[in-house]
């Protein structure tokens, strides 16, 4: 390394250190109150008027602090109570405050869900709070909030191989895994974890074609209904903030052998459906293609 190069490297390290110091000091300045401006400034009242919302740990939202890929940000919501006939979570709203359309979706659960846990992947357009609000069957609202650093999720295509999603549009895949078979046999322990995957470009309508100067029209999955032997266990009303090839993880409590059915509707009016046979004893799943 020449003296000149070394000096340049040293100057580089010094300036990096200074910049890091300076930016940490300025970052410490941003408060939760500032981050929550979009929420407190209108979103909250638009969706919940003056209803009380408590942050009591009934649900826990897990999101990465920094999203490595803003077009696929994995989010999970864990419920602190089991779903019973007496007390259960019936709806979870999910928001990314600063997205062009802040409401990601509304997710409905029933006692047959076993547990109102939910996992999915989102597009996050800029540094933003992400919040989940659960409504229990007594009408109370419970919130969990997280902050995600990501940028460009809504305008960036998720993958550069979007042809693959287009070619197989509407193809679905169910994965079902039985949990807690070694634990005691309470209903909750016997709930199964299901993952429903849908091949769909889930285009946001915010990707501008730099040549034509037009936006590719929005085209996304807007409703997903899953039932077990005719009994509804999970329903999602979703927006384009859900990533390409939407994937939902949720629970259900199969108390007998039966058929799991998913029905999907997109913004073009296309309907797709898929069924799977579930055995409650072994947790084995037979795919019916």
């Amino acid at each position, binding site marked *: 390394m020449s003296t000149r190069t070394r000096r340049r490297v040293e100057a580089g390290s010094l300036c*990096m250190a200074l*910049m890091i110091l300076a930016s940490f000091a300025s970052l410490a300045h941003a408060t939760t109150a500032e981050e929550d401006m979009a929420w407190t400034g209108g979103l909250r009242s638009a969706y919940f008027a003056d209803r009380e919302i408590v942050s009591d740990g009934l649900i826990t939202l897990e999101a990465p602090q920094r999203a490595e890929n803003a077009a696929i940000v994995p989010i999970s919501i864990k419920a602190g109570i089991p779903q019973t006939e007496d007390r259960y979570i019936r709806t979870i709203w999910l928001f990314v405050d600063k997205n062009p359309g802040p409401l990601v979706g509304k997710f409905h659960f029933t006692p047959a869900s076993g547990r109102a846990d939910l996992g999915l992947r989102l597009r996050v357009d800029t540094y933003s709070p992400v919040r989940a609000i659960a409504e229990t069957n007594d009408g109370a609202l419970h919130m969990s909030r997280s902050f995600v650093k990501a940028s460009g999720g809504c305008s*960036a295509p998720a993958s550069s*191989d*979007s042809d693959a999603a287009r070619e197989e549009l509407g193809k679905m895949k169910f994965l079902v895994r039985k949990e807690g078979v070694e634990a005691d046999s309470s209903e909750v322990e016997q709930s199964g974890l299901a993952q429903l995957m849908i091949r769909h470009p889930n285009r946001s309508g915010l990707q501008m074609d730099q040549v034509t100067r037009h936006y590719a029209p929005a085209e996304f999955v807007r409703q997903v209904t899953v039932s077990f032997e005719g009994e509804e266990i999970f329903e999602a009303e979703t927006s384009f903030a859900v990533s390409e090839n939407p994937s939902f993880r949720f629970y259900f409590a199969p108390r007998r052998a039966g058929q799991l059915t998913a029905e999907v509707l997109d913004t073009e009016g296309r309907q797709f459906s898929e069924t799977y046979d579930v055995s409650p004893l072994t947790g084995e799943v037979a795919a019916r293609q």
Partner: protein
Amino acid sequence: MTAGDRWQLQRLLLYSTILCSWPVLTSADAGLQRIADGVYVRPGRIAVVFEDDSIANLGLVIGSRCAAVIDTGGSVAEGRALYRAIGKLTDVPVCFVINTHVHPDHMLGNKAFQRDHVQFVGHRKLPRAVALRAGTYLQRAAEYSGGVADESQIVLPERTVSGEVQLDLGQRILILRAHATAHTDNDLSIVDPQTGTLFTGDLVFLEHLPVLDGSINGWLGELDQLMGETFERVVPGHGPVLAAWPQAGEPAVRYLTELRESTRTWIARGGDLGEAQERIEVSRPEHWQLIEQYHKRNVAAAFAELEWED
């Protein structure tokens, strides 16, 4: 924090910003290195896109009538520096600008070469990829430089490649090959048969962790095929500019193969994407730089592809 403290901080930020831009300003004169008869490379450095300049390895092949530029760098300024360096080296005019793929460190310098007699060449899927992504790239570039996104900087390929295309440089033929979805869905590699030189674009990474933005299965397939062929030397998209073949492909193959195996294992166990990103490690971290910046992103891309395997 008092107003005085804040001012001190702003001053610190300003000074450090000035100090940091200095090496960038002087680096644009980085020269072309001759690696074979009529074949030159402007070596890039291992750094993060937008945060730094002069990242990709850029190439130049000179025939008797025409010269071809292979990638133009991450900014118009970088492209201009390359253009000037070429002018000092040869009187043969640049007739072709070949972009190996859509990523900004390889093609945001195109504008510097936009002249009547220059033809821009890329993969048949490059125009679509540019159309969809250039806006985001320019915005990110503007955020880092403190300027505004200038859309006139985007230059699209006029001539696209499916399969193989030959470019005649005068007593020298270049062979351009359009690949299946691999690093991206628009990867092009270039061979100069006269010297046995292969420009891989980002199908090969050395030292810089491979970045997956296309298909992990496709990428391993394309590398497998290329590594069955013989070349005197290869120029990777990132890393040392003179590399032996097929050895130069091996680190990327190892990284991608291990990433694929561990991701498949996670999926088979029913693990979710978030956990996989936290738990899947780089098996030979000593081989790679920029693991922090790109590995988790690669896990996400691999996971989203592989979970659809039957």
